[in-house]
């Protein structure tokens, strides 16, 4: 059995070595795949805070992914058409600057998570799952019917946005930027997990009545976790949109919400690097199986079923021999 700490470092090292190899071997597509994995991992790291620590089975995290994507799409769209966004007396200039886009994505998705969380956390269990799924669908249909930003067709952005001091048009530089953001998010997760808040949140998942009897409100703890979680997933949405230079309603789709949970469960739920391992495997499977058969999702379904029924701790659970938290 291998210690979890070693697995974590090996995975991170892989994310540094593989793209560098691809750079020298002149395989830019591999860098793009690795970037995709890093961004999906970031989205799942966000979800893992709500799901893995707080036990909140959110089937609507695509809302935040999509909001982040549209934050990028709308700001960049106004910048590339030189037409400011006019909201009554408020006039907002578009921008191609990633830091501004990121802050917008974080704030928008945090606010959405606050409202959705306030409503859905009035309930627990199955209700919570169905309600978050329903809110996801609400944003999906809204984005389809709101034709100002492309409706069903989505929005194309011609040139990737800028980050001060970097040339983001170079795949390896954009990859490095995304990896740095991912590491930051992993740092947040690991700090949060051991903080007083993380302790209380983790207890609220296991024994909410206990948390109440020490004078804390489990619902508020979960709400904050949901907001932080939504904000991080929102940030990943902005990066994902920048990777593809395209946003569309599919970023809001329920399949995406499901896939984010799948990533976490493949890697190991509640584990720091669970989402990262899951995302890497998911992208690898998508690429390898997708090359063999058009119907690779059948095999993903089978793998997922086997993991749920026989290997609850995911890859990390198998490697370390420890089942991990029970969500």
């Amino acid at each position: 059995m291998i210690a979890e700490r070693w697995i974590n470092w090996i995975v991170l090292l892989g994310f540094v070595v593989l793209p560098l190899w691809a750079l020298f071997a002149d395989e830019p597509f591999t860098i793009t795949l690795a970037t995709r994995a890093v961004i999906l991992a970031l989205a799942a790291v966000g979800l893992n805070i709500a799901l893995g620590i707080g036990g909140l089975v959110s089937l609507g995290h695509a809302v935040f992914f999509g909001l982040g994507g549209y934050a990028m799409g709308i700001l960049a769209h106004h910048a590339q058409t030189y037409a400011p966004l006019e909201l009554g007396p408020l006039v907002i200039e578009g921008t191609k600057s990633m830091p501004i886009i990121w802050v917008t994505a974080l704030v928008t998705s945090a606010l959405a998570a606050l409202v959705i969380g306030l409503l859905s956390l009035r309930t627990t269990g199955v209700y919570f799952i169905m309600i978050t799924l329903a809110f996801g669908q609400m944003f999906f249909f809204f984005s389809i019917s709101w034709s100002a930003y492309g409706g069903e067709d989505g929005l194309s952005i011609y040139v990737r946005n800028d980050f001060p001091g970097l040339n983001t048009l170079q795949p390896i530089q954009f990859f490095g930027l995304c990896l740095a953001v991912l590491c930051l998010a992993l740092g947040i997760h690991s700090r949060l997990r051991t903080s007083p808040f993380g302790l209380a949140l983790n207890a609220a998942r296991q024994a909410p009545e206990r948390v109440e009897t020490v004078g804390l409100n489990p619902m508020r703890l979960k709400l904050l976790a949901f907001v932080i979680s939504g904000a991080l997933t929102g940030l990943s949405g902005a990066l994902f949109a920048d990777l593809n230079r395209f946003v569309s309603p599919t970023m809001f789709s329920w399949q995406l919400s499901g896939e984010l949970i799948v990533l976490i469960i493949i890697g190991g739920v509640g584990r720091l690097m669970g989402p990262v391992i899951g995302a890497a495997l998911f992208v690898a499977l998508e690429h390898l199986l997708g090359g063999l058969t058009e119907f690779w999702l059948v095999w993903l379904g089978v793998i997922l079923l086997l993991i749920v029924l026989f290997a609850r701790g995911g890859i990390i659970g198998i490697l370390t021999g420890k089942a991990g938290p029970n969500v």
Partner: protein
Amino acid sequence: MSEPVLATRNLKKAFGALQATDDVSIDLRAGEIHAIIGPNGAGKSTLIAQICGGYRPDAGTVHLAGVDVTSLSTAERAQRGLGRTFQISALAMEDTVLENALLGAVGHARKPWRLWGAVERDRSLRDRAMEALARVGIADLADQITANLSHGQRRQLEVAVALTLAPKAFIMDEPMAGLGAEGSKVMTTFLDGLRSEAPILLVEHDMDAVFALADRISVLVYGRVIATGSVEEIRNSREVREAYLGEEA
């Protein structure tokens, strides 16, 4: 006599046709252990839930340190000084014993919104948690996963978490269950000393412990308090013998 630390007045709660508590008025005075006894289904659990905020009573009030807390949530009552242990352990089973005690310390210090800094490195929280574990005699188990504890040890941890809160009143739901003879004796001695710190409302099936500890006993039958009095009074009450001890008068 001074005002009771905890007082219920005319508490009523019905589930459909079943009157789980009927007009229950109980006082818990400073420095005492007040035991609630009664057969299974007498309404003891419902009474505790109403005192601690799990159920809203249909009628009646709960006062803690002179303040009406009837409309407050469980968490708000805990903040005002109600320290509770559960009959069926409600602990974070995946966490260590220390982490469970730390949770109490975090609640007592009202620090749940600290997102940064490891909780185990916070000296004041850690000292408070370790002290509570030491007082109930499980400091050596601090790094054990709670799920691996015996039932008796979980009882001790329940009490330790309540201690970290430094409450004005303890509500203990069967702290002796599963302890065994030796453990019961240790817990009895411990609770005996604890009453000077804060009074204890004790629900307990272990009659030896109740008779050894209680200053007063209330007998709950079919949701009603049929008698309240000293150990001697309850032992000798004909009504209690008939209704509860099942003896022919």
